[in-house]
């Protein structure tokens, strides 16, 4: 259990640092390949790095949009499951409905975290975020609609009066046949 958590928690066990700008070869274990001059590479012009950064930002925003659209697939899946579950109240339909409610809520709680990796001052995350939230809200709405169609939402008068005790009577009467 602990191992798993460690993996999930820190995220990585190993990594290749592509943007290593260290100049001193002594700090590396591996010597540079023949013909490769670090100094010339290091003195690359700013246009290349800019281009690289642009492509990265592009990639990030693309990824962010992909993430934002992910709930849509989920939505379709959920809709299908709900249709399968039918409209009577039993274990499966309740389970599916509650998962349909829980997923969007937990997703909405973690909006920031989901878009964390794509955070960049050059990337505009507002659009994907809004789309993500909107899709999840649609999912939530779907769940609520399902809940209602199962009759589990107190939207009818019957839900509010079914436990009302009978009204008190002011008068009292007794009697009957003469006792024999």
């Amino acid at each position, binding site marked *: 259990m602990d191992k798993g958590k460690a993996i999930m928690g820190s995220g990585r066990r190993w990594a290749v640092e592509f943007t290593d700008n260290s100049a001193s070869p002594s700090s590396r274990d591996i010597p540079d390949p023949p013909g490769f001059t670090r100094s010339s590479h290091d003195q690359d012009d700013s246009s290349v790095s800019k281009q690289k950064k642009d492509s990265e930002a592009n990639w990030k925003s693309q990824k962010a949009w992909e993430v934002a659209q992910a709930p849509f697939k989920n939505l379709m899946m959920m809709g299908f499951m709900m249709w399968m579950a039918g409209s009577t109240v039993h274990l499966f339909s309740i389970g599916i409905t509650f998962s349909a409610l829980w997923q969007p809520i937990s997703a909405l709680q973690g909006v920031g975290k989901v878009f964390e990796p794509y955070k960049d001052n050059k990337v505009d995350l507002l659009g994907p975020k809004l789309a993500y939230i909107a899709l999840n809200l649609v999912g939530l709405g779907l769940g609520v609609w399902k809940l209602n169609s199962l009759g589990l939402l107190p939207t009818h*008068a019957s839900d509010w009066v079914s436990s*009302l005790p009978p009204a008190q009577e002011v008068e009292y009467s*007794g*009697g009957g046949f003469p006792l024999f």
Partner: protein
Amino acid sequence: MAMAIRIRVLLLFLFFLSLSHPTFSLYQDQVGLMDWHQQYIGKVKHAVFHTQKAGRKRVVVSTEENVIASLDLRRGEIFWRHVLGSNDTVNELDIALGKYVITLSSGGKYLRAWNLPDGQMIWESFLPGSTASRSILSIPTNLKVGKDDLILAYGSGSLYAVSSIDGEVLWTKDLASEGIDVQQLIHRHGSNIIYALGFIGSSHFATFEINAKNGELLKHDKVRFTGGFCGDISFLKSDTAVALDSTRSSLVSVRFRDGEISIEQVHISDLLLDSSGVAAILPYKLIEMVAVKVKEFIIFVKLTNEGKFVVVGQIDHTAIISDSLSILEDQQAIALIQHGDNKIQLTVKLVSDWSNHLIKETSYMDCQRGLAQRIFLNNYVRTDRSSGFRALIVMEDHSLLLVQQGEIVWSREDGLASIVEVTTSELPLEKDSVSVATVEHSLLEWLKGHVLKLKGTLMLANPDDIAAIQKLRVQSSEKSKMTRDHNGFRKLIIVLTRAGKLFALHTGDGQIVWSVLLNSLRKSQTCEAPNVLTLHQWQVPHHHALDENPSILVLGRCGPNLDSPGVYSIVDAYTGKELNSVGPFHSIVQIIPLPHTDSREQRLHLLIDKDWHAHLYPRSPEALAIFQREVGNIYWYSVEADNGILRGHAAKENCILQLPDEYCFGTRNLWSIVFPSESERIIATATRKLNEAVHTQAKVVADQDVMYKYISKNLLFIATVAPQAAGDIGSVTPDESWLVVYLVDTITGRILHRMTHYGSQGPVHAVVSENWVVYHYFNLRAHRYEMSVIEIYDQSRADNKDVLKLVLGKHNLTSAISAYTRTEVVTKQQSYFFSHSLKAISTTSTAKGITSKQLLIGTVGDQVLALDKRFLDPRRTLNPTQAEKEEGIIPLTDSLPIIPQSYVTHALKVEGLRGIVTVPAKLESTTLVFAHGVDLFFTRLAPSKTYDSLTEDFSYALLLITIVALVVAIFVTWILSERKELQEKWR
């Protein structure tokens, strides 16, 4: 994948559906777990002993509950028993030929022969006749016509000779047309002549001689006695009788020998010096002697051969005398019972030798049994060839005792066969201080029991274990404890019997916790002919007066009429002690328990007397203050079946009597409904039970719609029939018969609903609960019984449908309502065929009224059938929609199903069923059912199954073991995984 899920869902759904399907039946091994059944016979009026053979000694009895039974003389158990119909009174009982029990019943209309060993009916003869007369059964010894032994039965004014083999009527002789009122049939041994003796008018004594072979009238004689006869007569020998004259002051001896009748008269004052007043001949069958009651004494008079009266003995008038019994050497013995304090004295004397006695025994007698009322004597031969005697004694409380050698050999509480009224009481709370020893003991027992149960569950039990498990379940000490239990299953059922005795029965096993013969309901100087009326809960402490015991109010009346003075007593429900008894006072026509209690939790009651004065009880200033505060809202109604009037009344200021009484109130008539006497006659009424709990006022119907029930405690169901249809079924044609039912509000007299069933007829049995009425009647057109349901809804609340208002509580649905607001109501109704006729109908009641209801139907076969109320739902249609199906509406059928498994009484019968009482347990799902008639039956019912508790046979041991095993497994796997991890790390 999805398909698989769908199928799985469907399977799961079906599984749940099968769980929720209502099955009320129980398994064979569940019988006796929560039900008990007791068999009684009622107050014995005839008893014939059968002790000659060496086999099982028995006594055959007939009772006032029309039961014929054969009892084991050793233990008092019932060998066999037959309950005749409620109007088939047993008049005579005898044993013929040593193997048949012969009964004459219904005023001499039915002669039946039963097999003595097993009680099977051998034959039955209907003896027709229209004139009412006394019925006499005579079984002559050795009187044969052909090969048949004759049985003589006199009933309905005719004499019948019946063959003892097959019950065929050999000949009939109409004697009523001759004007004779037959008192006795005499057959002299060896002759072929039967003598019918009796009175013609009030002044002639007649003898008729009839040929036993063919019923031919051979000769008749009559003699006139100028003083006239009063009707009392006793036959001393086969040729002598003693009668009383019309002034009841002289004895008349009648001798009829050789066709001549001679009469002689002796004034009683000549026999007894101090004998002013009237005399009566006691109806004992004594031979050679007559018992005459004069004032405070019973005198025994013998007739000498010269025709002289001789007084041989004199005893106190409270003594009880047996019929005479022939013992050895042609001697006649009779038994006398005299009463003392807490004891009875049994004396057996020979008729020929009155000064001595054969035995004189004193036995201790529980004073709660009252005085002896009847005694039946039987003898047996002791080892030294002398005669021993045993006596069967019927006591004042209708119990039956066998006394032998001064000891009570056995006793039967047969008063319980005639229960008048039932109520219940809680048991005392459990005391906190329970000694450790009992806890340890019970813990061990508990564990043992559960281990046994576990064995049973795991199918490891051998037959002995299974028997032990069953015994443990049936005789669980838990269920017969004398304290309140958490589920409210243990209660006291308090029953009032016709004898005026109060019994408290434990619901666990039916044992009698206490019994008390109420002094106020016993015969005394002030109360000559007491009869019991009803009982009510007087004090039910639960909030304020917890340290007091609950108590019961018992009402009685001194006399048979409505205007006879009343009496009441208050009895402690835990101990049976009579706390208070008052009376005789004003008459009691009606008792109205009010919905108010005083600070001691005593319920206020109004007793209405015949002048329609309302008397308030308890008579305390506090009660008076409460009553005066509430008097404006207290009403009462009276049903006058004879006049066909329903009246409503209210109390006004104090009544005007000679003695001012501030607890007495006059009443004024508010309204009356007069049913036209030429077209309607009231035959039945029904109201809701006072303490019925209703959970909700709304009924949610399909697609979330709401209907508001009309729930009123003041709803009266009343049924009337056409006057010509008031008789038996079949006495009228459908065209001239109708049944009208009304729902009446008893505050305002408003008729809420009226409905006519043309071609229908009573008897009507009805039950009212919540907002519905179910009633049962006979449909003459369809030749079948029908049951109808009426549901009544409040239309004026129907527009309370705004959710927002309801959420915010801005509605007046729970505010108090008055009957004068004239609520608009709608009714729905439906009728169904039902194949049984009914003896009683009732409905289940639960603590909060949430659980669905069942109708409890006492069928003509003396069983109790539970029928779901869902079958009697006026919203049933032939093809219910999907939404209605989901709501639980059953497709409409023309008749109500009788599911054999839903008989509450399973294989048992509650003979002579009269009433079904239901009491809620504390557990909401469960209701306690008590059915009474000649037998008693008690069980627990869960109309929607026990959804709020685990079943009785739930294995706690198995649960415990599973939990322990799981915990152990967790630890073991944890240790193993730790170890493995360590090894991995070392690698």
